[in-house]
């Protein structure tokens, strides 16, 4: 039995993904760990599996071939790195030796063995972790808004984690997810969708053998810290509400994450210690050759940043997709040139919507 695990990221998140891979490798030396990469290396940097804790590399190009540029053009970086998760799941489940498949967001750190979930997959096809497993008190309006209402907005399960058994139901789920993410992996709260995550609200409706994992030791993050307390036992094992901490989701490394941690960790000093460790590990794992904010699919081939409005226009217009199958190109006859002529998108400034990688 071989267990596969993957994470999905661009090179600007390589440092975090390395910390994930190292921490996962420490717990499960025998797992096959995949880097699913929606990016191309910046000049001066080479991604070499020989020197990584990843075993295999799967790129967007591998999965989408000639369609890659056109399809990815309709996505900002977060949409893109989440949209590939469906197809990557199907791809890895097709590996002949893959019995069970795990997905972890790159900003997760694993602290204790995932064995209980491996065992759950003997009985269940899909394991999901909700953002929250305990309700907030009625009096805490801020926590209800920050946590529960945010879950209703963005999805009740956190898709930073997912485990799938390679059985019929697990594969049926992966194919459905792939289908949805192909067309609908967007940050469009106005439509009721949020990238790959909100779709999974439907999973318990569409599929059998779904395990909603309510153990507090999994997927600990700012959105559930209000109800979770971290301690160490005498053996130095990290515990969350008395259960071993399996993995922590270091969401939003930076001031925003700090604020939410401060708001909900309160005086739980151990949480701040985890963050201190994580910052130091990410620093150590950073490759100086990768420019800040690097994303190959974030710019036209002349280096200009692609405005979100250009992506939205392109993905909504079949005629444009057909006319310009290589939208990253600039110059005569390009989508870029067309936009410059027919729209004001390229001359508009301040289009900072969408995620800007740190």
């Amino acid at each position: 039995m071989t267990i596969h695990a993957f994470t999905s990221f661009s090179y600007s998140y390589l440092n975090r993904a390395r910390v994930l891979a190292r921490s996962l490798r420490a717990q499960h030396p025998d797992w096959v760990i995949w880097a699913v990469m929606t990016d191309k290396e910046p000049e001066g940097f080479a991604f070499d599996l020989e020197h990584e804790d990843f075993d295999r590399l799967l790129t967007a190009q591998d999965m989408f071939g000639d369609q890659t540029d056109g399809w990815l053009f309709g996505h900002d970086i977060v949409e893109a790195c989440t949209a590939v998760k469906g197809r990557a799941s199907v791809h890895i489940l097709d590996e002949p030796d893959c019995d069970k498949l795990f997905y972890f967001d790159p900003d997760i750190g694993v602290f204790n063995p995932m064995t209980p979930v491996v065992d759950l997959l003997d009985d269940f096809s899909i394991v999901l972790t909700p953002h929250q497993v305990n309700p907030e008190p009625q009096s805490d309006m801020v926590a209800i808004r920050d946590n529960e209402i945010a879950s209703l907005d963005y999805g009740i399960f956190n898709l930073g984690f997912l485990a799938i058994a390679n059985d019929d139901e697990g594969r049926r789920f992966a194919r459905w997810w792939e289908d949805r993410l192909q067309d609908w992996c967007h940050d469009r709260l106005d439509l009721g969708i949020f990238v790959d995550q909100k779709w999974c609200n439907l999973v318990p409706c569409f599929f059998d053998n779904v395990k909603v994992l309510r153990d507090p030791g999994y997927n600990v993050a700012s959105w559930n810290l209000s109800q979770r307390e971290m301690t160490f036992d005498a053996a130095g094992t990290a515990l969350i509400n008395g259960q071993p901490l399996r993995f922590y989701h270091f969401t939003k490394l930076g001031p925003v994450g700090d604020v939410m941690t401060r708001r909900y960790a309160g005086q739980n000093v151990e949480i701040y210690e985890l963050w201190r460790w994580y910052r130091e590990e990410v620093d150590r794992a950073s490759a100086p050759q990768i420019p800040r904010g690097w994303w190959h699919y974030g710019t036209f081939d002349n280096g200009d940043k692609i405005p979100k409005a250009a992506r939205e226009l392109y993905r909504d217009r079949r005629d444009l997709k057909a006319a310009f199958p290589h939208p990253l190109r600039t110059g005569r006859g390009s989508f870029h040139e067309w936009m410059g002529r027919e729209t004001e998108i390229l001359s508009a400034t301040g289009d900072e919507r969408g995620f800007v990688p740190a």
Partner: protein
Amino acid sequence: MNDETLSTLAELLPGGGIDVYLRDFDPAFYLAQYPEVAESGLDCALHYALYGWKEGRDPSPDFSTAFYLKDNPDVASAGIDPFWHYVTDGRNEGRAGLPPAADMASLDPALRAEINEVRDHFDPAFYLGAYPDIAETGADPLIHYMMNGWKEGRDPSPVFSTSFYLKDNPDVVDAGVNPFWHYVTDGRKEGRPAAPPSPDLAMLDSATLAELSAVSEFFDPAHYLRTYPQVAESGRDPLVHFMVEGWKSGHNPSPAFSTVFYLENNPDVARAGVNPFWHYLVAGQHEGREPLPVETPAKCPVAETPGPAETAPAETPEQAEAPHDPTGPHHPGGYRVQHLLRQLPLEETVGHWTRATPKQARLTADEIVTALRTAAGARLAWLILSVGHDDYRTNPGGIQVCIQREERLAAERGAVYVNLHPVQPLPRLAHAGADDDPLVTLVANGATLGIAPTSALIAATATLRPEAGRIDVVIHQMLGHLPERITELVTQATPDARCWLWLHDYLTICPSYALQRNNIAYCGAPPVGSNACSICLFGAERRAHATRMAALFDALDVHVLSPSQVTADIWTATSGLTPASLTVCPHMTLDWVARPDPRPVDDGPITLAFLGTPVPFKGWLIFERLVRRLGQNMRFVYCGARPVDLAGIEHVPVHVTADTPDAMIDAVAEQRIDLVLHWATWPETFSLSCYEALAGGAHVLTNPVSGNVAATVDRLDRGAVLADEEALLAFFEDGRAAEMVDRIRARRAGHRIDHALSDISLAALEPQT
């Protein structure tokens, strides 16, 4: 001041004059002005010479660094320490150390009266912020405005425009009086405007006006005008500007609120389009929303105390947040989190500790041999090699006191006592490869011999071994040493590779020698591969550290000496090391002797004291909270060297030195202290201060983590071990404290307490002779 500090100063201030520099430097003033310097652990004068003058700090109330540099461009351009220039040359040349006529006393009485009348309306912070040229001179801002500033068209506050007032009031110009004084005393009563009417105010809608009035108290106009000079230039009312458009441009209404941060972190507020500052004041702050970004981890190097100054975790306590820090942001996680955020990766700390290798000559093995033969006199009957981590003669702390005493006892017994401590202090063991032969300072019978590579001492020891009656090696602390070299030293010095090793702390288990995970919490020495170690800043170092310690214990017959049973138990359970023997040797013993003539029983309020350094890791913050909660009917005393500033606490200055070893015991007795709070956050291996409290006739209140403090309280039944702060408070509130104090006072009236110090290692060594 120790030799190293002196020699560093000598390097900084070439050509002499250090005596007069140190004489005129006012350390008390310096520490009072710049309390953060105390945390750096640097000598104040050295701090000033290294950094202080470059940061515009003043070395004494009689010298203004900023003024002197401005007044003496030759000194400024030479880039030399201005205070050193002043004390060695400047003042002899008639140069002034302070700006002239800066004091009220020298002013004309009429002007003095005017100054006093406007004082409450003058905004010195605004003035200094708006006119940095005045700030640089060090002049009193109010005096400056009243004498010159108004004539130069400067404004005394953000709400008064000097030029407008003069322009609008020709009678004031004709009278030649100070316009601000005129406004304060007459003009405002007559309804004269202080500044041009704001064109904005009339344009505000009623909702914005209501918001404006809600935030006005917290808006900092001086800060706003300083930060956004274009607003000042426009002449617009800063508050109106902020309310109408400033916040939309991301302007901050005060240093305590970040508009951009608040909007970024509260998307609901951003979406609602309301003024974020108003939102924060009326709602956000009550909902726990943050006004400012979190403190980022300290990357800025600060001079730190190299090496543990005490047997306590020096890095943790000595740099821990000062109990009172009105200026610092308070982290909801408390002082431990604030301290955590300042932690650097271990190797970065090592980098900050690393100094240039001294140029002084190294002693050779032959020179060491000769020096030790000379120290011995006729024949080297007994040589004791004592391994320490710092200069025990100048640094305070429990280990240092032990070594001092051991050295004196050794001399009385005719031994030559040689202490070796690393020239380069480190917060961990030295790393082989980086430095295979660390330089050590050698001190023989209390006098410095010089510095030498450890190998020279090893060679000298090998030479002396045939002629020496006996050589013993006592390891007190190995920080900064290479344990492989210490192993070699013991092997060369003794026929059976035998040494003595003290458990003053837990360095044999972890480089975090007080077992403080991330320098903030007692960890109990879990297995190296545990989660706790993996996220600890000492975790990676501990892996190799443990292997090297195990190698030392394998290679040598290590006779372990523990100051307490509780420490021996912790060590046995967690170290994984096998000693040749393990002996408990307490540093002090106490004996209660019945008084032949009992003295009267003390009366008066319960007296609770805190002894030693008032730092959080010893429970100072808890002591402060007790003072606030129980203040009415009790007396609170702080016995120690560092001044504290909290109403309700009496400060009894106590300095324990080699000459006055009983100073703390005497203070506890004289002050008739009933209870001492000793809330250690690590398992103390002995705790002299606990014994001092008991020897002075008090009982001790502590917690279960405190190691030998709790064990001693339990064993002697003198005090209470309380689970947590809540239990501590309950102990006072439910009457148990009062009952205990009655017993203490009765016992004190009938008994005297004798205390005796141990012979440190000598007690263990002597039976071997």
